[in-house]
């Protein structure tokens, strides 16, 4: 049975600004040791909405099981990175920019396990249109 993975950010609101230091930790919730070949942690953004997904990794770290230094994820592991100036989190109509910390665990046997912790970078929003006689619209998609 796959043990549960706990991935958490230190900021309870999960709200950050550019240049902030994002910190957190991860561990597996298990009494028994769970042999993992490697663990990969990424801080990344991806797009959602109508378009194809774009994504980029801002921070990446990988730890591997080594006979000299066995990987025991029952012991919490911390991570930290300084967040960039862009892209900021955005919740638009057909384009959304989402940030998250993604943890992938590769066990010795069985399927990989993925855990995510979402957070917001910046505090932008969809602007409210103003002006007389102005109407917002969506153009029909075209090839």
């Amino acid at each position, binding site marked *: 049975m796959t043990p549960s993975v706990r991935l958490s950010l230190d900021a309870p609101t999960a709200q950050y600004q550019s240049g902030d230091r994002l910190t957190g930790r991860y561990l597996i919730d298990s009494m028994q040791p769970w042999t993992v070949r490697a663990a990969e942690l990424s801080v990344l953004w991806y797009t959602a909405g109508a378009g194809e997904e774009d994504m980029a990794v801002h921070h990446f770290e990988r730890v591997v099981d080594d006979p000299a230094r066995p990987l025991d994820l029952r012991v919490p592991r911390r991570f930290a990175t300084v967040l960039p100036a862009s*892209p900021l989190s955005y919740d638009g109509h*057909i*384009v959304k920019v989402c940030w998250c910390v993604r943890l992938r665990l590769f066990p010795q046997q069985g399927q990989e396990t993925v855990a995510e912790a979402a957070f917001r970078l910046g505090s932008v*929003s969809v*602007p409210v*249109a103003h002006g007389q006689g102005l109407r*917002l619209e969506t153009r029909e*998609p075209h090839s």
Partner: protein
Amino acid sequence: MLPTVPAVDAVTDSPGVRLAYRLPIDAASGWVSFTMAAVCLVWNTLVAVFVVQLGRGHLEGRPNWLLTWLMVPFVLAGLWTLFALCRQVLLNLAIGPTCVEVSFHPLYAGGTFRGFISQTGRLHVRWFQVQVVCEEQAIYQQGTDTRRATHRVYRAMAFSQRKFDIVPHQAFQTEFEFTVPNSAMHSFVSTHNAVIWTLVVRGRVRRWGEFERRFPIYVYPLAAKREPISETSLAAAGSAP
């Protein structure tokens, strides 16, 4: 260098006459005329080949009336493409160049900036507007087609004037102010998604109908701000270098 934020060099490399930077026009405006010319040329060449063959048959006393009548809609369509192309070319000639300048670049959310517009031509203008527009663009696959969806999320009037004339050798020139709203999303471009800010110049002129010209502007995240945006800095940036 800001990830996913387009470089501003295209604008800052081009100084303005009245204000600091002259905005380049959106390349898409030129592509409309080019595409129309290409469609017109290809369509009418093909139609001409068939018409010549049919005409030869008629002259030699071997008329093919079925094919002749079938060709009528194709010829009409060809004439329509010629008409549309001529109208587009005349529209471009009659409505002279539009020049837009801004006092500061890149722009930042919450900032108020000055703009300058110059429009030449010989025009009886019914209405003329400059709008600040933000659009989301998403590219996606549908079957084997690549499609692009656009959603306009913000549009604000920066300048509007009704019923005036523009005469040759005396361009219509005016300054205006515009604001990028607080907490607005910065310009964003990735492979399939984009958030694009534009100054859109729109107008309706007698005989020619409506026209629209787009001038991309770049809104940067506040974290990348070079200096505080104040009246002093705007005034300093307001005069061309």
